[in-house]
């Protein structure tokens, strides 16, 4: 057996993907969606001929049927924006997406009971209603960002909870974005009042501010809350301390201070009854990822359950201020499809641990996240340049320069792309990437 075969023999079993429960469920739901779509398409194709025949008959009989086309159109238009139902899955939505968990994800815009609208605007966004009545609307943003257009109504209470931050509005249009450890509120028009543990702030049109989420969320996210039927809220407002999280590696659990009596929309339970992406009810296997995991986020991360690890991180599990922990947190975020959070952790490595040997890798990975996942090529070019600067002779230097050329090209800066490609040709004339770099850099191959 040759040397390569021998080495691969001992390594091949390590070439495995992170195929944890959450990723598996997501894939299954997509398979089901495709199968349904194809069945519906096959049915409609089969019915096409029959419909053509029927249309011919209908045209003949139309004057005798008494329909009111305009009225029908108006009814359809009134139903265009689906409601966010408190108890039943919306008929207009794919049941697999909302199901019993009733969480709104990106691309869905809903009309609330008071006439306001809400729309999740990022791929990792998750929004749900805890109260949806004409006189009271309470929404919870678990993660990501959402846009709200709130109709003015002095008699109605409208609040959005994003972790420990509560946004109270009267009539306005605003955005709420929840990142790791902080919440951003941006007001398009009108005013909003933002309540945090450190006090209230009033934002007017044009204002955009980040609020520190140092007091951890009092409202558990949907998949660890009480049974879905708990929709009626107590009259008083405030937040209850959150159930203590299992201690994460490198950090202890935190307890939020009590702010008042029974919480708005909070479903505090010592035995969370989760639902999952399949829409299953509360009894689930102990090993399921959608339960509140008992292991710390680093253990989950290392076992490949990145979704569960990230959920703990998003709820405030401590991340030690050392490069390895931050890189692991970035992995959990990246591999569970939360690129913004991943970028945040990677930037912390760059900002706080410049001299660490892993920092070039952090810069390179940041570049990839910015370029491939977040669509920010100019920033990505900067990150790749940093990776090169930190380790000019390192193993990533050539790749970093190649990716920098690509990034500048995609950012539309032909001049920078050209100059970097010339540098690449000078330094790595025999590289197998040369041709591609030349293409991105606009250099004619010789």
């Amino acid at each position: 057996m040759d040397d390569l075969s021998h080495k691969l023999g001992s390594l091949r079993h390590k070439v495995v993907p992170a195929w944890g429960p959450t990723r598996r469920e997501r894939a299954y739901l997509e398979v089901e969606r495709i199968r349904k779509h194809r069945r519906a398409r096959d049915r409609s194709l089969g019915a096409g001929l029959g419909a053509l025949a029927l249309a011919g008959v209908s045209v003949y009989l139309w004057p005798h049927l008494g329909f009111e086309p305009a009225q029908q159109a108006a009814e359809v238009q009134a139903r265009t924006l689906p409601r966010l139902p408190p108890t039943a899955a919306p008929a207009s939505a794919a049941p697999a997406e909302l199901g019993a968990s009733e969480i709104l994800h990106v691309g869905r815009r809903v009309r609330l009971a008071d006439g306001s609208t809400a729309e999740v605007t990022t791929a990792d966004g998750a929004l749900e209603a805890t109260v949806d009545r004409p006189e009271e609307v309470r929404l919870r943003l678990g993660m990501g960002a959402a846009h709200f257009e709130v109709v003015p109504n002095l008699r109605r209470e409208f609040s959005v909870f994003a972790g420990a931050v509560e946004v109270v509005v009267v009539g306005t249009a605003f955005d709420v974005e929840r990142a790791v450890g902080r919440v951003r509120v941006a007001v398009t028009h009108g005013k909003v009042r933002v309540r945090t543990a450190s006090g209230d702030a009033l934002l007017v049109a044009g204002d955009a501010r980040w609020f520190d989420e140092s007091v951890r969320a009092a409202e558990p996210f949907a998949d660890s809350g009480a049974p879905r039927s708990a929709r009626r809220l107590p009259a008083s407002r405030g937040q209850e301390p959150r159930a203590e999280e299992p201690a994460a590696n490198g950090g202890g659990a935190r307890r939020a201070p009590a702010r008042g009596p029974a919480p708005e929309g909070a479903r505090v339970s010592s035995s969370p009854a989760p639902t999952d992406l399949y829409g299953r009810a509360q009894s689930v296997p102990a090993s399921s990822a959608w339960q509140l995991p008992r292991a710390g986020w680093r253990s989950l991360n290392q076992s490949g359950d990145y979704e569960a690890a990230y959920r703990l991180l998003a709820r405030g599990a401590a991340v030690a201020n050392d490069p390895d922990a931050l890189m692991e947190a970035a992995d959990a975020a990246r591999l569970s499809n939360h690129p913004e959070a991943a970028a945040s952790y990677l930037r912390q490595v760059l900002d706080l641990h410049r001299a660490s040997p892993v920092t070039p890798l952090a810069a390179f990975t940041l570049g990839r996240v910015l370029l491939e996942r977040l669509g920010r090529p100019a920033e990505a070019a900067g990150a790749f340049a940093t990776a090169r600067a930190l380790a000019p002779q390192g193993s990533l230097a050539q790749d970093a320069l190649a990716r920098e050329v690509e990034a500048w090209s995609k950012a539309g800066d032909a001049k920078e792309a050209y100059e970097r490609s010339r540098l690449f040709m000078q330094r790595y004339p025999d590289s197998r990437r040369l041709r591609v770099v030349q293409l991105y850099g606009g250099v004619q191959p010789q």
Partner: protein
Amino acid sequence: MPPPSIPLRLIAPGAPPQAAPLELSDTQFFERFSPYVARIGMRLLGRNADVDDLVQEVFVAAYKKRDQLPNEGATRGWLAVVAVRTARRYLRRRRVRMFVGLDLGTPPLELIDRTLSPDEHALLSRVYQILDQMNVDNRLAWTLRYIEGEKLEDVALRCGCSLATAKRRIAAAHAHLQSEMDGG
């Protein structure tokens, strides 16, 4: 109505291969076999990001054929064949994109095994970078043999070729890899 829960079926160590027909719900079927397909997909494609699409395509096809799959062994074999066919299509598309400059090749492997040393990780990444430059059929045969660890006969079955052709492809790929690893 919520889908049924998925019971886990424990198999005793050393139990003989499953010979009885599979009687699994759709979700049980997916739970049972998707890890296997995901693993093959990762090993064939070398990119974590492509695994989901491959798994989805394989299972959309698999559900149509489920009634014809007699037992677990046959199911795995059939899934592997479909996975290889799907991977072949993906890899050919990737090669075209690389040729026109829309793809810079497989980045360093995203592997979750923390026991991998940097050198081991670099070795595997280098292997996959070389595989990206290789004839797709040769690459698939070699990967099934050396990464998935299949027997030669099974490599031939999965690739839909004769045993002699499979051996030839594997040998060509291995020689190319050795040459690149020694000279690169």
